[in-house]
């Protein structure tokens, strides 16, 4: 029998409000442990929560961007469980009236658009952080009470790769809204995955497992693949799948059982009596809707239309808000109507530079004019593509302009045939076999010879001219 995976994701996004969701404590990342706390977020007896208006507005904003219906009437509920990082042993969350529900996010799967349903998005308070030192466990309550938006997808995802795309696109949308930095390393974006398998074409859901401890999008993808295989093996062996929560072990690349359904907690949700239910004005929702900027999908379409980019290029350039702003500034500033060279440079050498420096593309200090200059030098044949990459690296390191670097490093491309003839003859002489191959009809072998000339000229030779020269020389002979 052929099976299909059914996947749903629960994503927690930490909203970047200045203060916590139910008190006035600051939310700065990296502060000394237990310095951003007060009786309210420490859950001291007698303290009471007061809702942070901005956290509510951010939640509505995300809900709208995910095409959700915003509840006109909503409330908070208490969820009960015992853990030392939860000072009240109560988490204020939302149970049956989430702020946003019934939305969707369109993702790209194999060049096609697939719509993933968003079941709900609700606001809740974060727990603290446990730090284990030898025999002792310490608690840092700075994170306690920071606003979290939990975004729950429908089980519409049918492959680990789709889950990866969904997360990438979701992160991208939230980032565009300026409500979270969505940094998984900092814990400002967290993901749990629910997975089951069922015979392809059937409707009924199989027994699911929930995977926790997923610390990167890659971990989500790998863990899901592992879990699918595990489910399929159990099916093949005729064994029962038990409903359980499993932890992803990144080092061992496998999931381990944490607790089964029988051990599942009864959270005893009930309405939070300290926060009265409230209504959200339609007009207020309208105002918040107006603050939503152009979102990645719209921007991608516009980049394709305005700058003639391919879907592939446009998608890469809108992936984060900063990248898109950086890219658009450079696309606009490029004097030619054909923007392809700019896109190539941004996605190619510049993205590589960013990667190797562990930075974002937007942090690469190459102004639109400087980029234009480099591209101009290449297009006019003054420097080779290879030399241009050297110029780029040097420019980022030293801040010098392209002209200076070309001069100082003597990178001017040699296009003069007479200056290249000696090197060419030497290469022909050293590689009789390759020359023979070419003459025997293996046209591609000429590229090896071009490469050798480039090497001898330290990349300065104009490869196009070298190729023409070689072709003429070897065909004439």
């Amino acid at each position, binding site marked *: 029998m052929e099976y299909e995976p059914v996947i749903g994701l629960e994503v927690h996004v930490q909203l970047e409000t200045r203060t916590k969701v139910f008190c006035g404590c600051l939310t700065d990342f990296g502060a000394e442990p237990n310095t951003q706390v007060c009786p309210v977020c*420490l859950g001291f*007896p*007698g303290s009471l929560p007061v809702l942070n208006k901005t956290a509510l507005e951010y939640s509505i904003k995300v809900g709208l961007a995910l095409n959700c219906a915003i509840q006109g009437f909503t409330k908070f509920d208490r969820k009960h469980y*015992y853990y*030392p990082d939860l000072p009240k*042993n109560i988490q204020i969350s939302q149970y049956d009236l989430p702020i946003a529900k019934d939305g969707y996010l369109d993702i790209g799967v194999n060049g096609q658009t697939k719509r993933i349903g968003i079941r709900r998005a609700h606001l809740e308070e974060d727990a603290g952080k446990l730090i284990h030192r030898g025999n002792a466990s310490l608690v840092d309550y700075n994170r306690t009470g920071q606003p979290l938006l939990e975004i729950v997808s429908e089980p519409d995802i049918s492959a680990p790769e789709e889950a990866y795309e969904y997360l990438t696109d979701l992160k991208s949308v939230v980032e565009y809204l300026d409500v979270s930095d969505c940094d998984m390393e900092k814990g400002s974006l967290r993901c749990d995955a629910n997975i089951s398998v069922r015979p392809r074409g059937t409707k009924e859901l199989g027994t699911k497992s929930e995977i926790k401890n997923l610390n990167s999008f890659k971990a989500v993808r790998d863990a899901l693949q592992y879990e699918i295989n595990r489910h399929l093996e159990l099916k093949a062996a005729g064994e029962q799948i038990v409903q359980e929560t499993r932890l992803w072990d990144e080092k061992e690349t496998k999931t381990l059982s944490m607790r089964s359904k029988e051990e599942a907690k009864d959270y005893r949700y009930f309405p939070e*009596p*300290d926060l*009265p239910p409230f209504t959200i004005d339609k007009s207020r929702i309208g105002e918040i809707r107006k603050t939503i900027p152009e979102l990645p999908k719209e921007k991608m379409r516009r980049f394709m239309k305005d700058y003639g980019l391919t879907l592939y290029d446009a998608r890469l350039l809108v992936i984060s808000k900063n990248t898109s702003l950086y890219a658009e500034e450079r696309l606009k500033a490029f004097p030619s109507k054909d923007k392809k060279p700019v896109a190539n440079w941004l996605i190619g050498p510049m993205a590589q530079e960013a990667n190797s420096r562990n930075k974002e593309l937007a942090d690469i200090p190459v102004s639109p004019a400087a980029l234009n200059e480099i591209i101009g030098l290449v297009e006019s044949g003054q420097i080779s593509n290879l030399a241009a990459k050297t110029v780029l690296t040097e420019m980022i390191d030293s801040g010098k302009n392209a002209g200076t670097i070309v001069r100082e490093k003597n990178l001017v491309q040699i296009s003069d045939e007479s200056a290249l003839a000696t090197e060419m003859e030497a290469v022909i002489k050293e590689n009789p076999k390759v020359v023979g191959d070419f003459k025997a009809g293996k046209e591609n072998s000429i590229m090896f010879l071009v490469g050798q000339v480039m090497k001898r000229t330290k990349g300065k030779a104009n490869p196009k001219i070298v190729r023409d020269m070689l072709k003429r020389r070897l065909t004439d002979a």
Partner: protein
Amino acid sequence: MDLHRLTAHELSDRLKKKEATPEDIFSSLQKRLAETEGKVKAFVRLADGRLGQIRRTPPQLHGRNAGLLSGIPVCIKDNICTEGLATECCSRILAGFKPPYDATVIRRLHEAGALVLDAKTNMDEFAFGSSTENSCFGPTHNPWDLDRVPGGSSGGSAAAVAADETILAVGSDTGGSIRQPASFCGVVGMKPTYGRVSRYGLIAFASSLDQIGPFAKDVHDCALLLEAIAGHDPMDSTSADIPVPDYTKSLGKDIKNIRIGIPREYFVEGMDPEVKTIVTEAIEKLKSLGASTHEVTLAHTQYAVPVYYIVATAEASSNLARFDGVQYGLRVKASRMIDMYKRTRGEGFGAEAKRRILLGTFALSHGYYDAYYLRALKVRTLIKNDFDKIFKQFDCIVTPTSPTPAFTIGERAQDPLQMYLSDIYTISANLAGIPGISVPCGFTKKKLPVGLQILGKPFDEETLIRTAHAYEQKTRWNKTRPSL
């Protein structure tokens, strides 16, 4: 002159005329305490039976009520947070807990110039009870008969006022915890409308029912103390943003044309015959003062006790989850975390607290929520609707505060249900969120005080003060003091 015997408004006059100083009042209280506190035990953690220093915070006259209670001593129930001063809800689990902040009512009292006493009053653990017997410090004794309970849960505050060990006291009322002890101790006590007084800093029992309120020797003082502590607080999302009137303006007004409803369901079996006679006479007195009385019906009264014990215990089980030994209070060490939780809570909570946590946890459990908690909320709405209907035609409702006078210590301690029934007339007001006052209305043959309860429309404490004051002026039951 025994200054401790006077009321706040009488003392204010003397202070203004410079016939006395706050120090005089305080030393008078200390002297009184030395004589009586050994018998009454209204306070907890008192060093050698004396009041401690007056709280170090000097009066910080500020805002609307600056000076309203200048120099007047006020004592505080042990479940209201006082910065740096132990606040333990009379529970072992909070042993040594010194809050890092003042409750909003404490701040307001400081602003009004009151001297908040550095001593907390006894109570049933976490306000779970109607007799102040469920205190880890032992019971408080009723100043009228030391073998009897003062009522509860704010029994310490009520007894301290009755015994002239303080001038004013603050308590909390979740199901009658101010009104019932006020009735048992022959003093005035009020539960304001839910949302009238900030709960910020009140260690929660049942968040949707709890309300802080005043204890006083007469209605005038009750009005002053209410005015000092009432008002919107941005730190409490359930506090109402409704202006606080000058309650003293309701004093001395007649009650002609006041329409009073007398609920038929409150005068049935279970009521002590003496209480019935005394309350009936009080109603006749109100009529003689020009009020009109009519029998009304509160049809869902019989469900009030069960609804209350589901809602209140459910919320309590949740509110008490935080007492786990991690951050403050008692911690019983164990090698595993889960055992630390279990042992801390096992040793920290008394029997009644455990009973209520179990009841509440059950009511909120998966599979039982709809049948218990949700259903209780629906009936709560019906109870509230009963009151709304009556208040369309009537200005207030008059009932006994409690079906009996103070019972003897130990009499009901082994019978929780019997104990729960002593709040039968008071809990409906908490479920409906409406205000209620208990004012002394006579004595039984054994010289035990009986209280008259007046219930009013939401945020209409003025009518309660007006009616209670008119009655008090004509009867002066409050002038009879216990002999200690």
